[in-house]
């Protein structure tokens, strides 16, 4: 039984090593800082450009992780687990998209619920963001994202209660994510430096 648990832990650590480079944190930091600055310069209509970061970040992350850690095809059990996690994440993201839409609709009516949501300022938007991040953290096993989700919600609520300038709700967490990401990246590069190519011989990649 004991060695079964150790094998599971070894597999899990190998899987998690692909999420220790800090790149997701850096991309998240850039996204949040971008949102903050777009709000500051009243250019929120350019938010779509930030969304284009996502496919670019996925490509960069994949290339970077594989070039430093190597390529692995995890066992069918892990692959099935990932598929299930992605399906659950899709459901949650759909739900948060609906929530986001409801929040947006609150600005176009005088019903009681719409007035209530308007009075909350951009807390509902922060709630939606933290829900997305928390879900990603739980399902992709990046636990620090759950902490980030809590941080975003706390900043949004505190900002609303203290009447802080709204762009700072994004800039403050963005700075935290960027710093964490950079620290992780430096440690990762130190732990997994680029290997020099050798003359072919023996079994090598």
């Amino acid at each position, binding site marked *: 039984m004991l060695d079964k648990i150790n094998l599971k832990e070894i597999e899990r650590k190998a899987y998690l090593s692909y999420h220790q480079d800090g790149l997701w944190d850096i991309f998240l930091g850039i996204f949040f800082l971008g949102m903050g600055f777009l709000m500051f310069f009243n250019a929120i209509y350019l938010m779509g450009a930030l969304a284009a970061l996502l496919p670019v970040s996925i490509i960069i992350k994949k290339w970077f992780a594989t070039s430093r850690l190597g390529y692995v095809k995890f066992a069918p059990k892990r692959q099935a687990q990932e598929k299930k996690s992605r399906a659950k994440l899709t459901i949650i993201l759909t739900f948060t998209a609906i929530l986001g839409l409801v929040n947006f609709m609150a600005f176009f009516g005088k019903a009681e619920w719409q007035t209530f949501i308007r009075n909350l300022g951009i807390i509902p938007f922060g709630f939606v963001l933290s829900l997305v991040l928390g879900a990603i953290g739980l399902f992709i096993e990046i636990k620090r994202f759950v902490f980030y989700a809590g941080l975003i919600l706390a900043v949004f609520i505190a900002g609303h209660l203290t009447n802080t300038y709204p762009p700072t709700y994004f800039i403050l967490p963005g700075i935290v994510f960027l710093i964490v990401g950079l620290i992780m990246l430096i440690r990762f590069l130190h732990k997994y430096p680029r290997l020099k190519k050798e003359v072919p011989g023996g079994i090598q*990649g």
Partner: protein
Amino acid sequence: MGSKDKDKIDRQPIAEIDPIIHEPARFIIMVYLYVVESADFLFLMRQTELTRGNLSAHLSKLESAGYVQIKKEFVEKIPRTLLSLTKKGRKSFRAYRQKMKRVLEKLPDQ
């Protein structure tokens, strides 16, 4: 039953342990290949923390024993040399685990 016979019986499980897998570096290579479907050389090097030459030498030994297979294939249009355990390798690793468990369980508590 004489004491000599008793000794023979006690040593039997230890004698059956696969020396190919039992070597520490090869054991850790087998562990990582056991928990994944396939992996490239760099992945194994990073996870096992073996040097390039060391890993290469041990993989050659495992390949000669028929425990590891090496395949060159295209993964997302990129050519990769992938290592994986053969059926014989997986069976041998499972058998090794069982035998080690039996040997260790029989050790008296001190």
